[in-house]
Structure formats: structure tokens, C-alpha cells
């Protein structure tokens, strides 16, 4: 449907790009009319991330449930301000939803329109990662434009497994947060809201990300990782979180950021590779007792450990790497997940452009440059 407001907006934008001029804040609001039935956004908030053993063996902090609920409230307010009417959320019994209910009820009594309609996905609550899978699938099926994730690397990985092409926006509330950004949630909410309502071109709003795929025996068992696949000589899953560094032998990363903690920091401190760079990194490690090549790595909050480094090389996308290690444990994004023995063939492959994330920084820069929020509050879109 053609709408003259679109023309005005485009002209204004073009004008601003060509010639900086004083801003007239009383100018028409830059709203786009989108032909969609219900724009909605999904939220997956994990109530139990950051409650693992690293709270005891390292100095991991844990975000209280009430703080997580507050983060969700910030995101809700922000997406509502961008015109998103409906938010679909994963139900849980960890306390977030009951706090939200209380907060939203209070708002309703005050007749405030700061928040969108909040609905829970009609999925089971088992208190396990299955809830995340089920809820994410339900959100994808219902056509959400984006999914906001509150959790650590593990939670983001679970969502990414199921979200398909729906872009995700991460907010870190876990222990290991190599994947999601550390950012003010209100801003993440604004970026998601503006992107979801189509006010920001997809080429700006969304980034394509790499991921790692682990296949055991040609797919008999398989799983993914968003940041790192770590192979350890340890042989059992136990309490899942990985923190002992003396038995790490191989690490594959999608990106190697020296500014994050966790296993990927091993790669990041050897050869930084950004999220946008081609390929990843594959590092071979040794027992630090027997090698001279050592590296000091911030492996967990407050915990700087020593690893032994043998060598590293670029990890090319699309090419399966067979593991050197004959048996051990594979940790995905910092959590022990898969055991394998000498009878198993394990392959790790890097894929590019595998899933989408909301590029919050780019969205907000675009918003500022194009003055998308100049004007009256944005209308709710769709009925």
C-alpha cells in the first residue's frame, strides 16, 4: 500500500543526508506504515542462568530474579515505544513472570500505556532447556520479528538452535557471556523494536553470524555452538560448567574477541578474529605442565588460568575438521555437553551466515542519524 507519509519520510531522510540542517522537532513523525497483521517480538528470559558452580570456584556474579524481571520491563517499555503491540514470552517458574505480572498490573491500574500486551507461549514448563526450545519454536511459528534473549551463552545457543532466520538480540545475564553484548537493555529493546517494525533497513539492522556444528558419527549425535567448541580430556559431564584448563586440548571458535572472558578468550588473546571476519580459529592446546608455551587467560569471572598452547590456524568455513583427541568431552559455549570415545568420529565445521542477530549498535546509529525517534511517540502498529 502506497502511503504519502513514506514519500515524505524518504525525502526527509535524503535531505538530511545531503545537507545538514537545523532540526525542526515539530516536523512530521517518521512513521512507516507496514502492512502486517500483528508485529510481535519474542522474549526468552532464563531464570536460572548464572547459578552454576562458577559462583563458587570463580567470582561469578548472579543476577537476581528481580533484576532480570526489571530488564524485561525495560525491553517491554522500549519495544512498546517503537510501536510493537504484542510480546510473546517463554513461561517459567523461576519468578520472572510473576514479578512481571505484578509490575504490569500496577501499570494497568495507573492507566499507563507504557507496555505492550504480554502473552506467554503455550508451552510446557519443565525447568530445563527443553522449555527454551519449545518456546522459541512457538515464537517462530507465530511469526515474531525478533527474539530478545536474556541469559548466558548457553541460553543463546539454545535459542539459536531453533530460531531459524528470526533474528535474536542478546542481553547477558549468565556467567559466560562471550556471545551476548553487555549493553543497557532499554537500548537493546529500542533497537529490536525499530528493527522489528521495519523502520530500519534489514541490511543495517541485522547481522549474519557464524556458528560451529559438531557432528559425531556422521550425525548420530550433533549440536551447535555460537562461540566455542572446546575438547577436553575430561571424561564426564558432571556439573557441566567448564573451568579446569589443564586438560583442554582443542578449541574451535567462531570469533576470537580479546575483550571477553571464557574459553574463546584463549583464541582472542592469541589472534583476534572479529564476528565479521572471514572464518574462525582452531587452536591446539597442551597440558601446561609439559609445554613451555603458556598463555594466561581470563577463563571465568575473576579467574585467570594458565593454558598450554601448541599451535593455531585459521578455521575455514564449510570444511569439517576431525578431532585429534580420541576420547574426551566436548564443551559447547563453556558447558560440557557431549562425551566421545575412540570408536566415535567427531567433526567440527564452521558455517558462515548461519543465523541472524540484531545489530544494536548499527540500529541506534541509524536511528540517531535518521532521527527516527524525533516526533510524537510512535503509533502502535497493526490491530
Amino acid at each position: 500500500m502506497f502511503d504519502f507519509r513514506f514519500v515524505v519520510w524518504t525525502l526527509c531522510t535524503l535531505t538530511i543526508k545531503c545537507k545538514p540542517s537545523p532540526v525542526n522537532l515539530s516536523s512530521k513523525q517518521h512513521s512507516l506504515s507496514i502492512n502486517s497483521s500483528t508485529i510481535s517480538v519474542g522474549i526468552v528470559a532464563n531464570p536460572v542462568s548464572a547459578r552454576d558452580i562458577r559462583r563458587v570456584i570463580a567470582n561469578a556474579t548472579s543476577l537476581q530474579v528481580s533484576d532480570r524481571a526489571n530488564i524485561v520491563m525495560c525491553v517491554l517499555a522500549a519495544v512498546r515505544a517503537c510501536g510493537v503491540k504484542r510480546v510473546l514470552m517463554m513461561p517459567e517458574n523461576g519468578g520472572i513472570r510473576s514479578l512481571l505480572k505484578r509490575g504490569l498490573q500496577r501499570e494497568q491500574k495507573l492507566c499507563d500505556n507504557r507496555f505492550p500486551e504480554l502473552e506467554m507461549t503455550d508451552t510446557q514448563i519443565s525447568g530445563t532447556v527443553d522449555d527454551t526450545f519449545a518456546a522459541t519454536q512457538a515464537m517462530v511459528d507465530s511469526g515474531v520479528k525478533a527474539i530478545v534473549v536474556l541469559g548466558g551463552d548457553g541460553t543463546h545457543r539454545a535459542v539459536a538452535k531453533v530460531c531459524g532466520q528470526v533474528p535474536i538480540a542478546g542481553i547477558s545475564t549468565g556467567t559466560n557471556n562471550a556471545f551476548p553484548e553487555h549493553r543497557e537493555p532499554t537500548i537493546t529493546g529500542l533497537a529490536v523494536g525499530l528493527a522489528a517494525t521495519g523502520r530500519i533497513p534489514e541490511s543495517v539492522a541485522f547481522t549474519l553470524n557464524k556458528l560451529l556444528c559438531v557432528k559425531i558419527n556422521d550425525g548420530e549425535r550433533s549440536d551447535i555452538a555460537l562461540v566455542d567448541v572446546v575438547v577436553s580430556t575430561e571424561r564426564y559431564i558432571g556439573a557441566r560448567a567448564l573451568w579446569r584448563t589443564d586438560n583442554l586440548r582443542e578449541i574451535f571458535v567462531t570469533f576470537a574477541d580479546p575483550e571477553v572472558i571464557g574459553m574463546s578468550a584463549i583464541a582472542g588473546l592469541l589472534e583476534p578474529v572479529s564476528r565479521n571476519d572471514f572464518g574462525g580459529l582452531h587452536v591446539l592446546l597442551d597440558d601446561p605442565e609439559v609445554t613451555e608455551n603458556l598463555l594466561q587467560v581470563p577463563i571465568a569471572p575473576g579467574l585467570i588460568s594458565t593454558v598450554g598452547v601448541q599451535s593455531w590456524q585459521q578455521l575455514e568455513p564449510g570444511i569439517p575438521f576431525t578431532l585429534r583427541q580420541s576420547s574426551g568431552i566436548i564443551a559447547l559455549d563453556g558447558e560440557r555437553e557431549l562425551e566421545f570415545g575412540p570408536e566415535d568420529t567427531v567433526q567440527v565445521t564452521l558455517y558462515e551466515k548461519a543465523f541472524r542477530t540484531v545489530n544494536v549498535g548499527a540500529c541506534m546509529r541509524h536511528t540517531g542519524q535518521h532521527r527516527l525517534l524525533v516526533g510524537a511517540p510512535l503509533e502502535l502498529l497493526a490491530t
Partner: protein
Amino acid sequence: MSDNPFPLSRDELLNIYQTMRTIREFEERVHVEFSRGDIPGFVHLYAGEEASATGIMTHLRKDDRIASTHRGHGHCIAKGVDVKGMMAEIFGKKTGVCGGKGGSMHIADLDKGMMGANGILGAGAPLACGAALAAKYRDKGDIAISFVGDGASNQGTFLESLNLASIWNLPVVFVVENNGYAEATSVDWAVACDSYVDRASGFGMPGVTVDGTDFFAVYEAAGEIIRRAREGGGPSLLECKMIRFFGHFEGDMQTYRAEGEVDDIRAKRDCLKSFSKTVTAAGVLSQEDLEACDMDVLSLIEEAVSSALAAELPIEADLLTDVYVNY
């Protein structure tokens, strides 16, 4: 090929299996005997929760103390209390570990560091703080464990104990055995902030949540927490998320549970089944090893029941003994 990937030896793993199996068979048998009408009073069964008691107790030494809940049989067995003595106590016989004077809810053996099951929920937490205080004075790295249920974690005694343990830096570990139900009331309703870990932070100590039906997860997490306490790192809270197979007490029809819920958890979340699967898949123990163990356990339980049934009841003279050391 059976090289051992676990941080426990084959014999230790067999012992652990035996402990968990003993708890399971003990509780299942008590359930049967109770329904026959020979067991007086109240009984609260631990079946389904074995991985928690065993995963934690495997780290304990003789001089470490534990304060238990009303659901104490599992803690007793894992701490090494004599099974026959326990069965006799539950039947109220003179040969019981408490001479028939305590019963299931007060079952204890201080010689084994088991400071008692407690009929008052939450009452064990301050007692465990006391045991930890005494351990601190002994200065040998001993610790104390306070077991509470999800419901008792709302008691003032528990919350006060968290505070006291933190300010005195006591070597005590608070274990919240969260099986989702406080009697008939769901934990989701009863616990504000829905998180024991957040409560722990509120009282100045770290909290860790672990799957209480996974022996190895409990074992590893408990190991680190207990080591921290022994080394002067102070108290921590460990939440074991688990399930109980039976009702709050024997006779509880569990109408507050969803239909099929118990059958479902027995099928899908049985900690003994998952332990067996893990150790046999790794080739460390064989199915035959486990079955042989099962047989031994069943005959131990059988013996415990028959000797309990045959044992004498306490007599009138026993009524007045042990009120005081001397009066």
C-alpha cells in the same frame, strides 16, 4: 574397554550405587511395611532423592556433621548409619538406633555425625551452624551440612542461620533439597523471589543450583563447595532440584500432583537409572555388577525387616531413661 572417565574409582562407584540402591530399597520397603500397619506414627520417604544425599555425603569425613530434615532416612544411610538399626527404630523396637525412643522423624546417630532427622522443619539449620562452630574451634577442616527442604527454607531459623553463618564465616553448607512441594503446596507459590540462590546472595554467600537427580552433577558441585568450606572460604548454599516419588508422608494420596506425574518421573527422572546408564555406558561397571549389588541390598533390607519385626519392644523401665545425663 573400561578405562575409567570418572573422578571416582570403580569400587567407589560401586559403593555409591550400593548406597543409593540401599536408600531406594529401604524406602520402598518401608512404604510397603507401613501400609501393612506395623509401623507406628509418621514416616516421610526419600525415594527419588538418592543422588542428592549420596552426591554430598560421598565427600564427608567421619567428623563432619549433618543436620537433616523430617525426611531423613536417605541422609542417615548415606552418612553410614546402620540400616538394621534404622529399620528397628522405625518399627519402634528396642534395638533401634535410638532405642525405639525417637522413631522415623528423630532418627539419629551422633557417633556417625548424623545429628538427627528433625520433626521441626528448619530447626536443623541453627544446629548445623553450631556443629560448624565447634568444627571451627577444632580447626581440623571439618564441616557441617544443613539439609532443608524447599518449604523449610521459608522458616526464620533457616534465614537467620544463613546470616549467622556468613557473619561468623562458619564452615557450613546449606543444602536446599527442592523437590517442588512443601507438603502439598508448590514451591512456585510459597517461595518469594523463587530463588534460593538469590536468597543466598542476600545473606552474603554464593549459591549454586544443580540437577539433584544427576549424581555426578551433585558430586562435582558439592565437592567444590565443601572444599571451599573446609579451606575457610565460608558457607555456601547448594540447591538440588529433585523429585520425590512418594507423598509428603505415608498416607498422603498426593492429590495435589498432576495425573500421571509420579509415573512420569519414575520413568524419566530416576537418578538410579541414569547413574546405572552412565556407568555401564562408560564400561566401568557392568550390568551384572549392578544386579549383584541389587541382590545384596535386597537381602540386607529383608534381614533388616525381619530382625526388626522379631526384635523386642522397649519396656516400662526404658520410658524413664535418658531424660537427663543425671538428675
